[in-house]
C-alpha cells in the first residue's frame, strides 16, 4: 500500500480498536500479501494478535505470514465462525468477500479495507504526474525516464547488473533514473548509474505512471519491472515462475530485451577500508570470524525467532562473533546477538570482511551476492512466488549472481534445518539443499 493508503488503513484500525470493535473477536486476515503483512503490523501496535491468515492457495497452507500460520479458507467451516472477524484488503476483494459470504459469513463480520480509486482521482493523479514529469524534464532535459516504483533493493541491484549492457544495446547515453526509497538509491549508486532521482514520496511514482497511462504518446517513461500492478493491461506477472520464466529470465527478456546469453555484472566495489575498520572497532567485530544474520524479508517468509536464537548461540559457542542486520524496532536483533546497521553502499565489502552471512532470502542477499564470503541463504520450501517456489524463482545461483552460496530449502524451523545450517559452517564447501 502507498503511504497515504496505509495511513488511512491505520487510522481506521486504530479508531475501531478504540471503539472496542475487536474486543472478544478472533481476527483472521484473508490473503497472504504485503497488504496483509502491513495490517498485521498495525494490529500488533494495537496489541491485537490475529488468529490466522487464510488463503486459497494450497501451496501456502502451513507456511507463515508474519509469523502467523496460513490456513485454508475452508477451515472456517465451524460453528464459531460468526464470532470471528475477517479482514480483506485486496484488489480482488469482491470475489473474496463473495467467497466468505458463500461460506455463511455474515457481512457484518467482514471488514473490507481496500480502497479503489475513482476515475476523477485517477485523472487528478495523472495531472500530478504530469507536473512531476515536467519538472524532471525541465531540469534534466527531454531524456528517457526510467522508473523503479518499488522498494525492493534486489530488483534495483538486478537492474544495475544489466544496466550497462542495456544502455549499449539501446544506444542510450543520457537518461533520468528514478527510485522511491533511500535504500534503492544507495543500491543504484553501487553501479555507474547517473541522474538518480529519489522521489519525495513513494506515491509520486504512481502519479507518474498514471500520467503515462493517460498520455502514452507524450511520456518517455519505462517502468523497470516485468509487470507492475498499477498497469493492469500487462498480465505478465501471472507468468512469473511459469515454464522457465524465473526472475532473471523474465527481467532480462521483458525489461531489457537482452539475449539469454547476457550475464549479470556485479559492480566494482569501492574502497571502504577506513569506514569498515571504524565499524568493526565500534562493534568489536572480528575480521573473517563474524557472522551477520539477516532474518527479515519484506516479501518472503520469515523464520521464528527461536530458530535464529538457537543458531546464534551455537555459533557463539564455536567462537564466532554474531550480529544481526537490524534497522531498529521493526527488525529487532536476534537474542544474544549484536544489532548492527550499515549503509547498503558498503554492505558487500562489510560482509566480505566479516566472512560469514546467514540470511532468509531477501533483496539484501542480491546486494551481497558478489561478496567473497561464506553465504548461507534460506528459502522456505512452500513459499511461493506466483507460479514457482521462491527457490526456483529467486535462487542466487539460478540468477547467475553467485555460485558459492549455500542455498538451503527448508520445510520447518526444525532440527533438520538447524543441522543443515550449522553443517554449512563445519563442512565448508558442502552444498546443502
Amino acid at each position, binding site marked *: 500500500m502507498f503511504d497515504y493508503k496505509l495511513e488511512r488503513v491505520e487510522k481506521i484500525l486504530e479508531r475501531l480498536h478504540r471503539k472496542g470493535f475487536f474486543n472478544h473477536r478472533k481476527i483472521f486476515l484473508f490473503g497472504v500479501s504485503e497488504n496483509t503483512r502491513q495490517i498485521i503490523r498495525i494490529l500488533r501496535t494495537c496489541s491485537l494478535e490475529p488468529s490466522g491468515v487464510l488463503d486459497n*492457495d494450497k501451496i501456502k497452507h502451513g507456511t507463515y505470514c508474519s509469523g502467523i500460520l496460513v490456513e485454508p479458507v475452508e477451515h472456517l467451516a465451524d460453528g464459531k465462525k460468526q464470532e470471528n472477524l475477517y479482514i480483506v484488503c485486496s*484488489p*480482488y476483494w*469482491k*470475489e473474496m468477500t*463473495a*467467497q466468505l459470504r*458463500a461460506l455463511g459469513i455474515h457481512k457484518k463480520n467482514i471488514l473490507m479495507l481496500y480502497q479503489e*480509486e475513482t*476515475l476523477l482521482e*485517477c*485523472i487528478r493523479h*495523472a*495531472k500530478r504526474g*504530469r507536473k512531476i514529469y515536467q519538472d524532471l524534464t525541465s531540469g534534466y532535459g527531454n531524456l528517457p525516464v526510467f522508473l523503479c516504483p518499488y522498494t525492493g533493493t534486489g530488483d534495483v541491484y538486478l537492474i544495475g547488473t544489466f544496466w550497462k549492457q542495456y544502455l549499449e544495446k539501446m544506444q542510450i547515453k543520457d537518461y533520468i533514473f528514478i527510485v522511491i526509497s533511500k535504500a534503492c538509491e544507495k543500491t543504484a549508486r553501487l553501479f555507474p548509474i547517473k541522474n538518480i532521482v529519489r522521489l519525495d514520496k513513494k506515491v509520486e511514482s504512481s502519479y507518474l505512471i498514471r500520467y503515462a*497511462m*493517460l*498520455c*502514452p504518446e*507524450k511520456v518517455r517513461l519505462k*517502468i523497470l519491472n*516485468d*509487470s507492475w500492478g498499477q*498497469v*493492469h*493491461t*500487462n*498480465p*505478465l506477472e*501471472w*507468468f512469473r515462475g*511459469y*515454464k*522457465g*520464466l524465473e526472475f532473471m529470465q523474465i527481467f532480462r*527478456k*521483458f525489461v531489457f530485451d537482452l539475449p539469454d546469453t547476457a550475464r549479470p555484472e556485479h559492480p566494482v566495489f569501492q574502497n571502504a577500508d577506513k569506514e569498515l575498520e571504524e565499524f568493526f572497532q565500534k562493534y568489536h567485530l572480528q575480521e573473517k570470524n563474524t557472522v551477520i544474520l539477516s532474518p527479515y524479508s519484506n516479501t518472503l517468509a520469515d523464520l521464528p525467532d527461536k530458530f535464529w536464537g538457537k543458531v546464534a548461540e551455537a555459533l557463539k559457542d564455536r567462537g564466532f562473533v554474531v550480529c544481526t542486520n537490524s534497522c531498529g524496532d521493526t527488525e529487532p536483533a536476534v537474542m544474544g546477538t549484536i544489532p548492527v546497521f550499515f549503509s547498503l553502499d558498503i554492505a558487500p565489502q562489510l560482509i566480505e570482511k566479516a566472512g560469514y552471512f546467514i540470511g532468509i532470502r531477501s533483496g539484501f542477499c542480491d546486494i551481497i551476492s558478489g561478496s567473497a564470503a561464506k553465504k548461507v541463504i534460506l528459502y522456505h520450501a512452500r513459499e511461493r512466488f506466483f*507460479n514457482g517456489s521462491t527457490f526456483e524463482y529467486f535462487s542466487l545461483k539460478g540468477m547467475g549472481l553467485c555460485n558459492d552460496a549455500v542455498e538451503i530449502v527448508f520445510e520447518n524451523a526444525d532440527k533438520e534445518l538447524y543441522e543443515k545450517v550449522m553443517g554449512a559452517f563445519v563442512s565448508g564447501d558442502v552444498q546443502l539443499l
Partner: protein
Amino acid sequence: MLKEIIAVFQGALLWTIVQMRFRINEKKVVLVLVNHRKRLDYYVLAHLEDFMKRKYTKEAVIVFSDKEVCSQIRRLKLSIPIRRCYWTEDKIKKLYRYYSFYKFSDKIVFTYTDYPKENQLGRLLRETSIGEEEAVCLGLYRLRRVPWICPDNDAANKN
C-alpha cells in the same frame, strides 16, 4: 492532456451504455473479443465458465467486432446465459482506451495482446513457449492455473 481526458470520458460513456443496455451488475461478466488472435478468442470462450466461477457470476455479455464469434459460441455449446453485442473495432478501441487508463471493472476482459504498449501478452505468445490457452487462463482470466486442455476445433486452427 485534455484530448486524452476527453477520450477517456468517451470510453466512460460507452461503458455506461453497456451497463444500462445489459443491466451490468456484480453477477455478470463482460468479454470483449477483438479477434486479432482467433485462437486466443476461442480459448477465452472455452474457459468462460471457469472465469465466471472464479468471479461468482451467473451471466456473460460478449462484445465482438467479428461475427464469426457467434458461430464460435454456438459450436462451443456453452451452458451459461450469454448476451451478444456487435460493435465496430473503433468503438471497442475507445472502450479499451478508457479501460487502459482506469480499471472500471474487475469483471471485464479484453483480448488485446499488444495494446497498449505495456501489454506484453503478445510478446509472451510470440517469443516463449506459452500458448494461447495458458495466456487466457493465467494472463487474462488469472485463474492461477490452467484447468484443462481444450480439444482443438477447426475454428480455432484457422488462425
